[in-house]
Structures are given as structure tokens and as C-alpha cells.
């Protein structure tokens, strides 16, 4: 009953995802926190699938963080995005591939605004013309890059070297999927599978052999929530929201969390350390935290890429327990070295999330 009905519901939210010729727009923060994700996506698309993915060095932030932090006005962000469309138009592209869920939500919101209020689009066109002399065409297809990986999930499955299966037990890995709120909660029809039972990450997990955990707080915000974090006085609210999710998912013993939003991946990864320090709780069956990966990182692991080339050493929660379960062989001595062998430095006790207090008193979550 359960599986059939889920198929029924998400069929209402099919979206068209372009096949080739993408104008790629990066995230502001992903290159810092998950530095292998975007480079993997480009390499995968260009080298493995032979797709045309173009990026323009003049592309800037969409200003989404400032917009949601109430410091960038609506007209400003629309004009910035209009400039992105102008760069795309000038390069001869019609399909936009967006790395960031915040940007994806911004683009979706602006396109919907212009659809319903054409006078606003005209005003922004005028703003852009006055400011930069540029004009633009609207994109014909708008996809988040997780949509694109989803589209090619079966190709990836056919090439999988390390499926999402626990090699010790032969059982599917138990995986929490988390889509960013701005991926489809504002406009369900823009996301694969809509907002309530989204399929974009679940579809990848199932195609690659894993099992999706449906836990009570699955739809809850990761905790970032922009002003929950950006306003310093609110940060306890941010951490408490993340804690609510971890408490809800932990009894299902997740082997990892996959997210498609820069903020979600970062906060669900790094708040585990914060919560360990504040509450003395370390989540995960092994008591080492629950690894949080981007969908590109997971794709790379499934295809057999070196975890350190994918940037997994930059994560707060260490990923070795996951790599061991997947049967991935890795060279631990290269973990904190650059490709040319330079030492990049090493956290004091990376495998333990709680280090300020007596680490021996660290307790696992019951």
C-alpha cells in the first residue's frame, strides 16, 4: 500500500528537466564547505556524460542570503538575477542549472512573480538596461542540479561501483533524505515529487540500492532558516530545530543524511558538533555522529571516486564509518593532504564530536 500510494502522489509533480546545454550557476558557500561537490558535478557532466555545461566567471551571488536576511530589497535581487539571465542569453543558453537551493527558490519565485505581474518584469528589465545596458530572455528550462543528477540516476546506477548497500550485512543503507525548504515548498510543481513526498533525492537513493527513512520530522526545516541563524540572538532556535530532526530520525539508525541544499548540508553536519558540546549527545548508531553528504558527493562515492578528492575530509562529522559500510577502500594518510602532497592540517580529535569536555564522558544517544 505504502509504496504504490507514494508513486500515485508524486506523479502529480513531474517536471521537465533539460537534457543538455546548461548555463551553470554556482552557490556562494558550497565551494567552501563542500569543495568537491560542484567540481564533481562539472566533471561528471562533462567527462562522464559528455554534456555541455557552461559557466561564466562574471556570475555573482544571487543575493538570496541577503534577501532572506532582510538586507537586500526585492527589486535589487530581481535585477541581479535578471543580470544572470542576461549572461545566459549572451552565451546562447536557454537551460539554467542551479547549484544552490536558495538560488533555485529565488529564481523560481522571481519567474513566478513575473508571470503573474508582468509590469514588475518590465520594471526590472528597465532597471537592468539602465544599470548595465543588458537585455535578456527568460530561461526555457530551470533545474536544480539535483534534478539533473536525478534525471541520470539510472545511468549512474548502471555504472555503480559502490551501491548504497551495507557490505557487512548485505542490507540497504538506511538513509535520511532532506530537501531544502526552498527547493519545492514554495512552488511544489518546480520540484521532482512536490513538497510533501519529494522524490528528487529519494529517487537517487532507491536507484542506487539504499532505503529511504520516513521519520516524523522529515519535512521539518534543517534549522538554518536564514534569520534563525543570521541573527545571532536566534541561533539557539536554529540549533533546537536541528536537534528536533536528529531526535526524530535517530531511532531509525540512519547510516547517513543526503541533502540538496547548501545550508541544510552545512547545518545538519556542523550543528551535530554544537549539539554534542551543548547537550552531550552524539547521534548515530556508532556514537560518532550521522555523516551528512551532498548528493554530488554520494554520486561520486557510488561511481568510485576517491572520497578525499570529493572533499569529504572537510565534513564535521567524519565519514569513515559510512565508507567502511559501503566497502570503499581509502588511503587514510592522504586525508589531510592536498593533491600535490602538502599537509593541510588536521583537527585534534576529528572522530569525536564533543571535545571541549572530557571526551571519555561522551555518551551515545539512547
Amino acid at each position, binding site marked *: *500500500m*505504502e509504496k504504490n*500510494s*507514494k508513486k*500515485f*502522489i508524486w506523479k502529480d509533480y513531474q517536471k521537465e528537466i533539460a537534457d543538455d546545454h546548461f548555463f551553470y550557476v554556482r552557490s556562494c558557500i558550497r565551494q567552501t564547505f563542500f569543495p568537491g561537490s560542484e567540481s564533481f558535478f562539472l566533471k561528471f557532466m562533462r567527462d562522464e556524460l559528455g554534456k555541455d555545461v557552461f559557466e561564466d566567471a562574471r556570475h555573482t551571488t544571487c543575493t538570496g542570503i541577503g534577501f532572506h536576511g532582510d538586507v537586500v530589497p526585492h527589486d535589487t535581487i530581481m535585477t541581479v538575477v535578471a543580470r544572470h539571465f542576461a549572461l545566459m542569453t549572451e552565451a546562447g543558453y536557454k537551460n539554467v542549472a542551479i547549484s544552490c537551493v536558495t538560488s533555485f527558490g529565488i529564481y523560481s519565485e522571481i519567474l513566478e512573480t513575473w508571470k503573474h505581474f508582468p509590469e514588475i518584469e518590465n520594471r526590472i528589465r528597465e532597471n537592468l538596461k539602465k544599470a548595465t545596458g543588458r537585455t535578456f530572455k527568460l530561461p526555457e528550462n530551470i533545474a536544480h542540479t539535483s534534478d539533473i543528477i536525478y534525471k541520470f540516476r539510472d545511468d549512474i546506477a548502471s555504472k555503480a561501483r559502490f551501491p548504497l548497500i551495507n557490505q557487512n550485512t548485505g542490507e540497504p543503507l538506511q538513509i535520511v533524505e532532506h530537501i531544502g525548504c526552498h527547493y519545492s515548498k514554495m512552488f511544489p510543481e518546480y520540484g521532482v515529487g*512536490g*513538497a*510533501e*513526498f519529494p522524490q528528487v533525492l529519494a529517487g537517487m537513493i532507491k536507484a542506487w540500492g539504499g532505503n529511504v527513512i*520516513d*521519520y*516524523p*520530522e*522529515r*519535512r521539518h526545516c534543517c534549522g538554518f532558516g536564514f534569520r534563525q541563524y543570521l541573527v545571532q540572538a536566534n541561533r539557539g532556535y536554529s540549533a533546537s530545530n536541528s536537534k528536533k530532526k536528529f531526535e526524530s530520525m535517530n*531511532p*531509525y539508525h540512519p547510516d547517513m543524511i543526503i541533502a540538496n541544499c547548501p545550508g541544510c548540508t552545512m547545518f545538519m553536519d556542523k550543528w551535530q558538533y554544537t549539539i554534542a558540546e551543548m547537550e552531550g549527545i552524539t547521534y548515530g548508531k556508532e556514537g560518532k555522529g550521522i555523516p551528512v553528504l551532498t548528493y554530488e558527493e554520494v554520486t561520486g562515492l557510488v561511481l568510485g571516486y576517491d572520497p578525499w578528492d570529493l572533499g569529504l575530509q572537510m565534513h564535521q562529522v567524519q565519514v569513515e564509518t559510512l565508507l567502511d559500510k559501503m566497502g570503499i577502500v581509502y588511503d587514510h594518510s592522504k586525508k589531510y593532504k592536498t593533491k600535490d602532497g602538502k599537509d593541510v592540517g588536521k583537527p585534534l580529535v576529528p572522530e569525536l564530536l564533543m571535545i571541549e569536555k572530557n571526551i571519555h564522558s561522551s555518551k551515545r544517544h539512547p
Partner: protein
Amino acid sequence: METAIRLDQNGYLVDLIEKEESLGGHIKNWFRLFPDRKPANEILEILHSNLKLSKVKIMTSTNITSFEKQNGRFFLSDHKNETTVYDALVLCTGFELFDAKRKEEYGFGIYENVITSAGLEAMFNSGRIQISRGSIPQRVGFVHCVGSRDEKCGNHHCSKICCVTAVKQAIEVREMLPSAEVFCFYMDMRMFGPYYEELYRESQEKWGVQYIRGRVSEAAQNADSSIQVKAEDTLTGRPLKMNVDLLVLMVGMQPAKETAGIAGKLSIKTGGNGFFKACDEHYQTNLSSQKGVFIAGTATAPMNITDTISHARAAATQVDKYFKELTE
């Protein structure tokens, strides 16, 4: 059924065309009726026995595929391409229950312990209320206005009877499961009919049903298959999260899916709510915008059985008046 009976009593030749295998519509699946808790089949038995005494020709499993009006008469063809000519039509095509799957956030069709009000009636009829693992629920939640007064679903109208149905069902749950707790999540309690308010009061005073003013924002399944419900208690102004063993969605009424097609073929109007539109909402509620085409019951708006039967009788009166005026 009631219109056909009354027209037959007035001496007219009546065909009663039903697309289903048997007559009776939704009431066939209902256990008891509000406010007096009369078994639903008693009403059906009265209607069936009156039909048996009549000359009404009952045509079940019949789908009308074509409606044509020529020279003031109506040519109806069914799926077997058999055409019958009528001097007047009464559209009693009824309603359908809102498809609760469309309210994805409640998880109907996904979580086994989320059911609809119709599903609960089926449990009452079976004599046992149970959850997916076969055990007896200890906490039952009712969600009002599922698919009614909901812009997201495109249904702005109030389905009118769901509030009192929830009150009735809440009492029945407490009767069958004396130790169970029952919670109703509502926007407004619309006790419009005689003795409804009294039933609402009884449900609180005698049966301890708890009413929480606030819409449920989402339902999610816990590891033990119970349902976690999130809502806002708007009277205390606080968000609320609780677990129930069984969540009942009070699905609203919406036009039968054939309504728009029939309206188009007969060139009659439908209202903003999608139901057949009456010529006058006060004085001519059985007259459609097409001469010779009458409308009755829940094909025109959500209504309870009492009002449906009254409306059906009024339709028969209007048809009789129509023919008398034609022959004058």
C-alpha cells in the same frame, strides 16, 4: 429516488437512471445518521419500498453518453446506444467525496492509520475499529474541513455536514471504545441543523470529546505506525504536536465528476463551486438555466439527507407545475 417516487404518485411515467449497480448513492455505505443516530439503511429501506410500490422504471448500471434537446424534448442515449426521449429531466447526480490524497500533508493513502470519514463508517459497519496492526486505537483524531473551505484545493465552499458528522463519529468511537481519547481539530463548528448543537454539547459533556480550534498542518508516521499530528491551537495561541493511533479525515463534498460534462451538454450553468446552479438561490432552487431541466439534492450544493429529501420533493412539485403550465 424520492423525486421519482413523488412524480410517479402524481401519475407521470418516470425512468430512474443510475450509473452504479444499485441505487442509494453514498448513504449505502453509511452506518448511522445524525442527529438521532438512525441507521442509514432505514432511510434506504423506506425509499426502496416506496419504489417497489411505484411504476418507476429503474435502470441501473446505465451511463448516459449523449444529451440532445430537440423541439423541447430530450433525447438521451446510453452506452449501448439506446436512445430514449423525455419531456423533462431531473438531474440528481449527487456529489463525490473529496479525494483525500490531494491533501498530501495528511498522508492519506500512504500512512495506513490515516483514514477518511467514509472509511470510519465502513469500520462502524464491520463492528470493529482497529488500526493497521489489528489493535484497538486509544487515541483518535478527527481533522475537519479536508477539501472544504480550502483555497489550495480549489474548494472554497463549506461542505456543511462534515462538522456534525465528526461529532456523530466521535461519539460512536467513544461508544465502541470507552477508554479511547478523541480529539477534533476544527476551524469553526457549524451546527446548522435542529439538534446538532445539542449533539455537539453531548459529545463534550457525556463523551469527553476534546475540540481543538486549529487546522492540522501535517501528519507523519511514527516508528510504531501511530501518527504524529502538528497543529496550532488558535484559542491558546500555541503550536501543538501530539500522537494519535488513528487519524480520521473529514472529507468534504464536491460535485460529481460528471457534473461539468452534463452541464455542457445540456447548456445549463454551474456555480463557482462547480455544482449545478439554480435559477434563483431562494425561490427557484430546483430550476436550472435550461427549460425542462430540473436539479435536485446534492447535485446543487452540499446538503444533509433531510434537506436532500425535501429538495427532491420540491423538484417533483416543480416538474408537475411545469407540465401543467405546458398543457394549459
